[in-house]
């Protein structure tokens, strides 16, 4: 091998370390072939197109068989939990929405449900606010599953499903943009309700999108369900049975693929999920294909919930979307203008021109925030990846004392070793894709 300071070969106590930069595979294979050692440790990632983000896999190989798998994580650690301790309870939403960036509304919902539990206002949340939350979460579940299915297929070499999946995701993101002004990380769900009401004509637009999505999903399904190559790459791959899921704390589609119908929306309903008619999708194969089928079929269930939510919203037209308590509700109602989402001009006019008290109130609540009675809570929602739990501790102040997220990606990713050891190296990609870890959530 020619000398290259970034891709040289060096001797260590553990054996020879080879570095590759791509394009030099032939010389590498020749070099490794010359050694007597059968066992090779390969470092896959963190910069790798098939590891679903900045995930680093350390694989011990014997030929094509993986004998040991270790995950290296932390490449996307942003210290969000620590940062939350230095900002008000409301500002926390802006942080947590950035953790699992494919499911921002679930992060917000879990966090806000926790804050509301601490405040003791869970029952004061208006029905309209809860229905909007459900609507947005289910739309988000679709956009998240679309990425899971699209990139999962892409990582296994199927390019077209990804293009179609992202087309569908785009339709959902358009709705997010219409409602909150932002396509991702929208900080839309706030302690006490949601940031603002749906714009006029929103339910009609959502219904039209649902109709379009329902047709498109059929196309998507045709690309993969029953596809021979897809079946060969996913059937009986990455098996993790119920006992494995239980002890490893695995939830979500991976758990439901073992036949266990565990879905927090049914078993421990929140946001009024008990008032919606939908099914919990399970599979009994415990493999990558089962998890893929669950995600595919959950799309239709989400559409059903969205339709019911739209019906409810039409009835609840005009109801407030924030708690009545003005000591908690953010004073400034946002308004969507031509240049995006901003402060409502009416509100600015009031605090700057008419009411000194409103100005003081606004100032106090926005800079200092509201106080939350001391104590701790755990609240959990069913995110697209499993149980997303938040552990909040308050010491009675205006800022959290501790915020901890029980991220489904973090817990589920632990099962990589259990799924992959003993399998072929190519099957690791499928197994990891079926867990659908989002590294922003894993590392927080």
């Amino acid at each position: 091998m020619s000398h290259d300071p970034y891709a040289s070969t060096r001797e260590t106590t553990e054996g020879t370390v080879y570095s590759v930069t791509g394009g030099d595979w032939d010389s590498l294979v020749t070099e490794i072939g010359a050694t007597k050692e059968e066992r090779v440790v390969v470092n896959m990632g963190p910069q790798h197109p098939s590891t679903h983000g900045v995930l680093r896999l350390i694989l011990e190989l014997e030929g094509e068989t993986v004998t040991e798998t270790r995950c290296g994580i932390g490449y996307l650690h942003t210290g969000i939990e620590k940062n939350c301790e230095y900002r008000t309870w409301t500002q926390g939403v802006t942080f947590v929405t950035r953790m699992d960036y494919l499911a921002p509304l679930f992060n917000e919902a879990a966090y806000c449900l926790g804050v509301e539990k601490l405040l003791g206002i869970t029952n004061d949340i208006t029905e309209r606010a809860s229905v909007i939350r459900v609507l947005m979460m289910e739309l988000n579940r679709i956009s998240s599953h679309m990425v899971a299915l699209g990139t999962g297929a892409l990582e296994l070499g199927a390019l077209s499903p990804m293009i179609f999946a992202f087309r569908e995701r785009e339709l959902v993101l358009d709705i997010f943009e219409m409602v909150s002004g932002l396509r991702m990380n929208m900080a839309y769900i706030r302690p006490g309700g949601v940031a603002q009401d749906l714009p006029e004509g929103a339910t009609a637009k959502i219904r039209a999108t649902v109709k379009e999505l329902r047709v498109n999903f059929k196309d998507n399904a045709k690309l993969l369900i029953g596809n021979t190559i897809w079946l060969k790459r996913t059937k009986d791959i990455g098996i993790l049975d119920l006992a494995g899921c239980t002890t490893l704390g695995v939830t979500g589609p991976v758990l439901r693929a073992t036949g266990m119908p565990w879905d927090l929306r049914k078993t421990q309903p929140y946001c009024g999920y008990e008032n919606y008619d939908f099914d919990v999708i399970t599979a009994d194969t415990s493999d990558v294909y089962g998890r893929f089928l669950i995600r595919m079929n959950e799309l239709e269930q989400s559409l059903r919930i969205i339709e019911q939510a739209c019906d409810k919203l039409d009835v609840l037209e005009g109801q407030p979307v924030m708690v009545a308590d003005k000591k908690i509700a953010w004073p400034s109602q946002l308004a969507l203008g031509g240049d995006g989402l901003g402060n409502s001009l009416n509100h600015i006019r009031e605090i700057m021109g008419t009411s000194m008290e409103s100005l003081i109130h606004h100032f106090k609540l926005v800079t200092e925030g509201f106080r939350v009675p001391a104590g701790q809570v755990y609240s959990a929602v069913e995110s697209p990846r499993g149980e997303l739990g938040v552990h909040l501790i308050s010491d009675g102040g205006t800022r959290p004392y501790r915020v901890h997220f029980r991220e489904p990606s973090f817990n589920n990713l632990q099962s990589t070793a259990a799924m992959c050891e003993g399998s072929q190296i190519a099957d690791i990609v499928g197994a990891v894709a079926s867990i659908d870890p989002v590294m922003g959530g894993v590392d927080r």
Partner: protein
Amino acid sequence: MSQDKSLNSGAFGVSGTGDTSGYGGLVRNKVKPGSSERPFGSYFDDVTDELERAFPEFNDAIEKVIVDRDELTLHVKASHLFDTAKKLRDTETLRFEQCMGVSGAHYPEDKNRELHAVYHLLSMTHNRRIRIEVSIPDSNPHLPSLVEVWAGCNWNERETFDMFGIIFDGHPGLTRILMPDDWPGHPQRKDYPLGGIDVEYKGAVIPPPDERRKYQ
């Protein structure tokens, strides 16, 4: 720049209370919830009764039982943590088969009980949740590892070690998980400042935001 790096300071050059409004003074009355009295309500009586029946050392192991905001917290002594966890998992009437996570908390003012580890348990069999909490002194931050009881505690305990410095004895490989291996300190402790870390990249050192310019 002299700065008090203790509780709640260090963020973007803030010193003092961090109260940017100037109105509240932000004097916090720290209230610690006391032990709850029976009946606890909901399924909490059943859980404590069943545990008491199945676990002869119940009175030694459980320091206090707190029911707050419809959630049950069992404060367990560190010495009895492993046995309690095993009983909670194995007793048929309890069957907490999943540990949803380990969370740490740092209370520097709580002398000899500075570090807390909080375990959130879920019983899918009975559809119940409880929380167990353990407190240990900062001077001797050791806890038994629960990886043998719930394998999923592996990464959670590594995270709690990484962020709070709690050492889980018997853990199969207690190393840092989110921070780099050679990182000094445990970032989520209260005495660890926010920011204040130089950024190094290819030999150049960039000072942290709070030291780049005076914002005060």
